[in-house]
């Protein structure tokens, strides 16, 4: 029980992921599906950033890193005092990829609208079957 409550970030990440998956599968409108895809991507980013978080640690910038004169090299750097920056760097790339896929998806949705004059999936499928 303690483990389940203490890891609440992971429960919220699963919830957000299921919201995005539901929107991608069950929603009829193309823009709603794209919103669901973006929510899914940010849920995965939330998972990775939660892995790197620590209690009682500060942001990953080394204090006394470049000592002025006598202080250089005398300070010990303890890894437990700093949040793990590796997931942050990976997720920085993921955010940029997410906005690129979002732009391509919205451009495709605009082309679909210009061709079929609707964004609803069932109406588009009905028009395709008529031809």
């Amino acid at each position: 029980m303690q483990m389940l409550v203490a890891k609440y970030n992971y429960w919220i990440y699963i919830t957000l992921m299921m919201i995005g998956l539901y929107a991608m599968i069950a929603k009829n409108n193309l823009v709603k599906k794209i919103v669901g895809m973006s929510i899914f991507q940010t849920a995965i980013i939330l998972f990775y950033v939660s892995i790197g978080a620590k209690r009682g640690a500060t942001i990953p910038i080394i204090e006394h890193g470049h000592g002025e004169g006598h202080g250089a090299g005398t300070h010990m750097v303890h890894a437990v005092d700093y949040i793990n920056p590796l997931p942050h760097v990976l997720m920085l790339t993921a955010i940029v990829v997410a906005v690129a896929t979002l732009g391509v998806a919205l451009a495709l949705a605009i082309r679909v609208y210009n061709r079929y004059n609707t964004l609803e999936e069932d109406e588009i499928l009905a028009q395709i079957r008529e031809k």
Partner: protein
Amino acid sequence: MIWQLDLAILTLVVIAGIGAITVKDLLGAAILFGAYSFMMCLLWSIMGAVDVSFTEASVGAGASTVFFVAAVFRTTRRTKD
């Protein structure tokens, strides 16, 4: 990490996410998605990921919302679900 603030913002994230996929107006969905991205940005600065936080604030809450609003104005606001 302040867990009270963390839990409050996680609740707001879930509410904004559910609102973005249930509102029956695509412009409203775009704006709610911008609010969702901004809440995510706050969450990451709470968790100490400041670099991810300002990238999300500019790219997620800024550029993505502009993309959605531009796409909605080039197509239609009407939606059935």
